[in-house]
């Protein structure tokens, strides 16, 4: 599916539509250049899932854990600072990915060999004047 985001105000409706399409997949990979809006979209997804605490960037912490109001954990990764897959294994990424809980992963390019066989891929592209194109699809290897 391809979604056009014309204004930032529309991001919550985009988040709901993405969740309707990817709800069955726990692992979501977010690709897009710096400033494309990956963290902002994940904030909206977490809001839609009922996360009440602030969703902050995990660039420094590598992984943030949030809890929905129903008590389900949501994991928010940023692999930007990882230099290789071994570092991801050191922080236990496999256990998070196998947990069955939502794992929203920014910069997944750094850990390609650890991607699961099935995942929901979300690509963000920045257009003119704050517009964004969001392409999403279910990938099964």
């Amino acid at each position, binding site marked *: 599916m391809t979604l056009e985001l014309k204004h930032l105000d529309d991001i919550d409706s985009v988040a709901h539509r993405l969740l309707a399409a990817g709800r069955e997949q726990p692992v979501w990979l977010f690709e897009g*250049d710096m*400033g494309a809006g990956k*963290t902002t979209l994940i*904030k909206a997804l977490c809001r839609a899932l009922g996360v009440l605490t602030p969703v902050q960037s995990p*660039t*420094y912490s590598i*992984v943030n*854990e949030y809890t929905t109001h129903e008590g389900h954990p949501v994991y928010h990764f940023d692999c930007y*600072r990882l230099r290789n897959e071994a570092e991801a294994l050191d922080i236990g990424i496999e256990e998070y990915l196998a947990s069955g809980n939502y794992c929203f992963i920014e910069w997944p390019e750094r850990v390609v060999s650890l991607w699961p066989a099935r995942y929901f891929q979300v690509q963000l592209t*920045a257009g003119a004047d704050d517009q964004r194109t969001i392409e999403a699809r279910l990938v099964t290897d």
Partner: protein
Amino acid sequence: MIILAIESSCDETSAAVLVNGDMRSNVIAAQLIHEQYGGVVPELASRAHQQHIWPVVERALADASVAKTDLSAVAFTRGPGLLGSLLVGASFAKALALGLAIPLIEVNHMQAHVLAHFIDDPERPEKPNFPFLCLTVSGGHTQIVRVDGPLAMHVIGQTMDDAVGEAFDKSAKLLGLPYPGGPLIDKYAAEGNPLAYRFPMSEMPDLNFSFSGIKTAILYFLRQQTKDNPDFIQQHLPDICASIQHTLIQMLLTKLKRAVRETGITQIAIAGGVSANRGLRTALNQLGQEQNWQIFIPRFEYCTDNAAMIAMAAKFKFEQGDFVDQTVSPLPRLSF
């Protein structure tokens, strides 16, 4: 009272020894490795904390001329931080406390940053009085903390997305500078005009911050400018850096001014790695003079992640008898 403190919340493994009020040692793994091997310092190297913790602790004890059996207590960072990193420090501290049969003290990393101001430093004899405000700024955090006592503090403002240090590093990346490039922005900014370009300052309610919008603003700005002139960045780097730095600093200081207005507190402390930024120090000191604030900036080694601040926080807890037992576990999202 002799406290051994261990910090392992993120990239740095560090150990410090505090003897009564005297910070006898503060060893950081990166320094130790550099001294011993003269080699490259790993950033987030695999198993790094596990490899470093013993040598770092041994060195901290040796530098302080203290034997393990002299210790009165062991302190460690419980959070916030990366779980795998925190576990190394916590497990080590628990085992040592158990083996020596001495009290164990858990410390909140963010509170310790604030309490770094109370480390005795002959070059900085003046310490803040309670209550004071602390602006804690680093790669992972941006907070305004109201400090009413050593163990009585609360966050009155914080970032809702990116930390300010991250905004510096990512802006640098957009300019093609190596990551983490925050210090390079500071360096180039010194030669540039801070008002050359204008970037929007995000409007957040209350005392909270948002730094994610500036990345997008810079992205669009550079895309526009390099369309007309492919060498735009190279030709105007100092002005671009100075303008970005000016914007980020103003966003911090605007909220700080508001916090002073709302609390009536005029003693202002700064903590965290970004307090090494020269532009921020200068702007804060200037504002302090204008507004008649008293400004406190700790020495650099106590600003970045270090175990001395953990030891300082532990001293206050030791005096209160605030100990934990062996069931304690790290909390990656620990708040206060």
